[in-house]
């Protein structure tokens, strides 16, 4: 199948989703309220949030940085969760409305079809991302620093791309099992707390050295960790101590992203075969 055809499928998928979101006001209201409650929540918790001095020493931050620490987590989380949830939501919705069969009986690319949902959600999320992003930059005192802006936007984009494959895995689960959402939700919570969204990965070392070391190596195998770490590096500057040297984090993140996408592509073919054979969720 030609690149032109695949691109057209992706474009039309984005077009469909954007039209749907624009006409669905409750969706916008829901997203808006989510962002407001997230920001207010962090503002409230930020004051009461406490990291032990040992943890702060490991990440190179002070107590005053904690609100921004969480905001950076929220920004990255926003993009990674879009990528994580969009294909799953797409498939669940298509199963619910019965459109999945109509799509799967066409010769179009399944990967492109699923990717289009992530892209559409990202575009919509930009509307809500920008105010949150500006607030974080302003609080960090880097609002006018173009280098920081450039790098942080790049990390946000990478965060999304690197999570697309994970989103595809979750989407595939939805093809096979109707109750995939429960598993995905649980995994997503784990990702938030284990990979550094709101708690620094370095902090596990303080809890227990053995556990901390194990966690460090586990988290280093997943792209989420680098997304959070790199975003904080560019927001806080050199005072923030990253898990690995920056260039290493970029290299591993790039390799992970490509590798995960290749695996997703292969898995998607296998999953469709399995679904066809057993007549599971989509059928």
């Amino acid at each position, binding site marked *: 199948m030609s690149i032109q055809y695949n691109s057209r499928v992706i474009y039309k998928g984005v077009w469909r989703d954007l039209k749907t979101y624009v006409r669905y006001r409750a969706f916008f209201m829901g997203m808006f309220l989510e962002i407001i409650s997230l920001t207010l929540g962090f503002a409230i918790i930020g004051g009461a949030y406490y990291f032990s001095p040992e943890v702060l020493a490991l990440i190179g931050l002070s107590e005053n940085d904690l609100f921004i620490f969480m905001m950076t987590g929220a920004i990255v989380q926003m993009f990674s969760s879009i990528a994580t949830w969009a294909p799953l939501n797409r498939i669940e919705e298509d199963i619910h409305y019965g459109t999945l069969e*109509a799509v799967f009986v066409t*010769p179009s690319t399944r990967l492109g079809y699923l990717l289009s949902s992530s892209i559409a959600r990202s575009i919509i999320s930009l509307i809500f991302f920008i105010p949150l992003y500006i607030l974080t930059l302003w609080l960090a005192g880097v609002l006018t620093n173009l280098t920081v802006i450039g790098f942080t936007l790049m990390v946000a984009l990478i965060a999304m791309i690197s999570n697309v494959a994970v989103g595809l895995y979750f989407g595939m689960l939805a093809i096979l099992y109707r109750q995939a959402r429960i598993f995905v939700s649980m995994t997503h919570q784990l990702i938030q707390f284990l990979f550094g969204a709101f708690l620094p990965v370095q902090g596990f070392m303080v809890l227990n050295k053995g556990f901390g070391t194990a966690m460090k190596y586990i988290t280093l195998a997943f792209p989420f960790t680098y997304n959070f770490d790199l975003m904080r590096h560019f927001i806080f500057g050199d005072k923030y101590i990253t898990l690995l040297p920056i260039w290493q984090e970029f290299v591993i993140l790039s390799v992970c992203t490509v590798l995960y996408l290749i695996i997703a592509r292969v898995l998607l073919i296998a999953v469709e075969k399995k679904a066809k054979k057993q007549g599971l969720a989509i059928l």
Partner: protein
Amino acid sequence: MYALEAKGVKKTYKSRKKETEALKGLNLQVKEGEIFGILGPNGAGKTTFIKICSTLLGKTDGEVKVLGLDVVKEEKEIRKRIGYIGQDSERSTYARLTGKENLEFFAALYNMSKDDFAKQLEEFKKTYDNHEIFDKEVMRLSGGQKQAIVVMRGFLHNPDLVFADEISKGLDPIAAKKIRSFVKDYAKKKGKTIIMTSQIMSEIEELCDRVAIIFEGKVVAVDTPQNLMDDVNIQLLELRLRSTETATPEFLQEIATLDSVKEVKQENGYLRMPVSDSSQAFESVMEICRKYNINPVISYRTATLEDVFLKYCDKKVDLEA
């Protein structure tokens, strides 16, 4: 060449607890240009078979060729050339998009050019007179209108063969008639092959050139609707008594003793009697009616597709029930 050729098709659904054999060696051939109907009770395997043919489901065994292409090895090529209208598809649209936008989206999935899509839309507008379905969001359309969009989607990319699984399920008679007339007009005009399932016998009778009856995963009869009906030797006289009239035991007894009447059944205000010689039975029954001062509404019918369906499927369905 056949539009569809199925030989010994088997499908077994496996779960942890049990195995269900949905198709048990199904054989079928459908000619190009035919509108072909598949009848069968719930669970007979109609939908499973349609899904296998349209590449949505894998078979366990056997051989299926769609438009001369192997359903496993050449599924991508098949997908380009077939249309599919699934069961319960009334809702299978993007509710916030208009009818036209829904079709436009699928046109992209079929890689249709903009010109081809515009031409096809015009064709649809010529065949389906209610044009508001194209401009309104689908969520604001009635069930019949939504179904019209779904049916058009099945024909959108000008496929050579369309699989249609219960196209008028759940629709009121007017909406169902509109859908039927669209399918009939469009398919006949374009010379398309359609393989359709339905539980509505009149729909199959009206649309289909030939019919297969599937029962318990196998084809038990294939022929034209007329031949199938002719094969079931039923002549039935029906009397509907007026509200002021009563069928007394003497009246019933007298009718039952007629040589041309095989038996008399009283059902829902009707007297139904299979007869051997319709004209003789009619005369004799009318005479008895006059004798008892009864002036019924009387009708005569031969076998319908429903009788054919019952002949092949009723016995075991009853046992299962």
